[in-house]
């Protein structure tokens, strides 16, 4: 029995393909007049956000609502959490309110893992981004976008993975939960991943990850089917991760000239929000090859798929095994 989605590393290839396939079906609901399914009627999904992230929260909210779940948004700002209430007490409160799933965004790496394994709550836990650890639904929506664009076909590549596709992730790998989840998931799906960053922004220990590391963006671009540009926060400059914005943009930013080095079919991805002029120029961001807007739309479908697969059945189809398996009787 599996109940949580904490890390992209918990997903097998078949799990991941199932989520993408399910999302592909659910994406079609968005084209209908009535964009709602009754599947999670009577279920309660709590969006527990300890960090501001309107984009991620509304994406999960839209996903849950399209499946007819009741949604409670719990933001740490202005609540008792900001007055020192612990994660544990917050969790116990949500449990008392009958949360079937808690979608958690937290500034501490590992907080969702803690929530899922501590015994504080009985519902499913979905990691919506924890510290500098993981953001599995972002990786899933990126994989979904890639599959549509690179594998494609009329059915969006249903049933297939990303075998042999070359994905380059560029930017602040050290602080990026998107990169960590991306490396796990994309390699699970058969893609070849290359990380490109100044050495200061590559974690010590990343040499053991199942991917290549390069410091030379220009050398990697011609061999990339997709380039994922990560947001680089300007504050990093103060901590001497790189000398100036200008130098960062010059060495690691994607502009039109660099984009021209990519193969014709290659796409540019960005998890948003973009720092135009920093890691990406307006010319690239607004080009047809940039999938940023598509990624947002796909995010809702992916999150619907995750909520559906975790919550709809007596046991979930994907994700982390629950700590104490209380296997329900086989009813098939």
């Amino acid at each position, binding site marked *: 029995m599996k109940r949580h989605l904490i890390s992209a590393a918990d997903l097998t290839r078949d799990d991941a393909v199932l989520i993408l396939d399910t999302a592909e079906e659910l994406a079609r609901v968005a084209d209908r007049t009535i964009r709602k399914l009754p599947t999670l009627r009577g279920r309660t999904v709590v969006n527990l956000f300890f960090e501001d992230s309107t984009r991620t929260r509304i994406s999960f909210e839209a996903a849950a609502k399209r499946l007819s779940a009741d949604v409670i948004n719990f933001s740490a700002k202005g609540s008792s959490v900001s007055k020192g209430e612990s*994660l544990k007490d917050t969790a116990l409160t949500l449990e008392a309110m009958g949360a079937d799933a808690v979608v958690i965004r937290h500034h501490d790496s*590992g907080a969702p893992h803690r929530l899922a394994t501590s015994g504080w709550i009985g519902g499913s836990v979905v990691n919506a981004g924890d510290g*500098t*650890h993981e953001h599995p639904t972002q990786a899933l929506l990126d994989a979904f976008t890639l599959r549509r664009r690179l594998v494609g076909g009329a059915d969006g590549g249903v049933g297939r993975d990303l075998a042999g596709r070359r994905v380059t992730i560029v930017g602040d790998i050290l602080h990026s*939960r998107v990169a960590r989840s991306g490396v796990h998931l994309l390699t699970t799906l058969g893609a070849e991943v290359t990380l490109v960053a100044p050495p200061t922004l590559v*974690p*010590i*220990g990343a040499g053991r990850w199942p991917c290549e590391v390069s410091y030379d963006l220009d050398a990697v671009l011609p061999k990339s089917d997709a380039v994922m540009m990560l947001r680089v926060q300007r504050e990093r400059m103060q901590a001497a991760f790189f000398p100036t914005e200008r130098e960062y943009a010059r060495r690691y930013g994607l502009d039109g000239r660099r984009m021209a080095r990519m193969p014709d079919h290659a796409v540019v991805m960005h998890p948003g929000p973009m720092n135009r002029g920093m890691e990406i120029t307006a010319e690239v961001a607004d080009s047809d090859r940039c999938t940023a807007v598509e990624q947002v739309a796909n995010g809702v479908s992916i999150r619907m798929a995750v909520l559906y697969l975790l919550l709809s059945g007596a046991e979930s189809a994907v994700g982390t095994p629950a700590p104490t398996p209380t296997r329900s009787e086989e009813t098939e």
Partner: protein
Amino acid sequence: MSTDTHLIRGARILGGEPADVRIADGTVAEIGTGLTPDGAEVIEADGQILLPGLVDLHTHLREPGREDSETVLTGTRAAAAGGYTAVHAMANTFPVADTAGVVEQVWRLGKESGYCDVQPVGAVTIGLEGKQLAELGAMHDSAASVRVFSDDGKCVDDAVIMRRALEYVKAFDGVVAQHAQEPRLTEGAQMNEGVVSAELGLGGWPAVAEEAIIARDVLLAAHVDSRLHICHLSTAGSVEIVRWAKSKGWNVTAEVTPHHLLLTDELVRSYDPVYKVNPPLRTEADVMALREALADGTIDCVATDHAPHPHEDKDCEWGAAAMGMLGLETALSVVQHTMVDTGLLDWAGVADRMSFRPAAIGRLAGHGRPVSVGEPANLTLVDPSYRGAVDSARFASRSRNTPYQGRELPGRVTHTFLRGRATVMDGKLV
């Protein structure tokens, strides 16, 4: 209740041949075979090991200020249960032990507890802030007779302050115990920096942040010809530096914690804050280097860094949790498991690393003495054949933050004597 006269029968002194030991008037009165009780309370100790009472150079008793996690009384009870007869109480209390008044208070509380001797450690700098030397002389001249000074919890990172402290304590044969942690390299640090931290996305605490300070400090100690002690050494690189410094004949000593002899950063994958400690759990290679260094004497002693924390400070997410783990009540078992049962150290070696040497570093009179007639009867009796799972519910400490909960560890302290008076009898506190 215990009587003042005991006859320990058949114990192996420091792991040697079985012998009988009579304790009377607070001292070891007689050692031989076939001794008769003559009114003494007899302790049958077949197969057990008799050690000098253990001495801890690094204990956080938390009083004054954090009595919710430990007090001098509960901490010394935990110490006695773990076989200790003396502990050095670290200075990072509230208020900080940076004046004669605070160290005397802790010293007096230790006297009142009666479970083991408490030797206060004085802060090197006022408020542990690393800026201005505390009144080291006054603390030495106080009733507490402080000889070990440490800002533990924080590093004395200013090279000039460190140099001055090393020089200044020479006047009264003091020692500076350095918590080696380069602060800038460890901003936001949550765990050992390496493969696991990269995966978990937790801020890295690189080995170099410890090694750089140790390298600087052994050179400073050599330059001013002073005594330096390194707290909780945790990396293979640190071992190399200390080995090199000792080869030069410099007056450098070092300690290792039990947890750094056994646990690795792989445990952090659980995100369970019970494994959050400073310095952090390192890699398997570090653990092996530390064991080897303790065996060959490069590392002088085992010190617990016993760090009690209330439940709520560990029952939370990793980032919000406090650093530190309990050590007093499991130290000897961990050392038996990692050093004795592996053949790296015999029981005489254990006596050396857990009693003789720490007492010598702390210049502690009456502790770390040989088990021979006429010596103070500070003794610990261990049953090395015992096997059992650690159960924190039975701890004497006020806190429960042990990383060994449920783990099977060998050995059990059956008796502890403080100057001839039993503080532990048959595994129970008296």
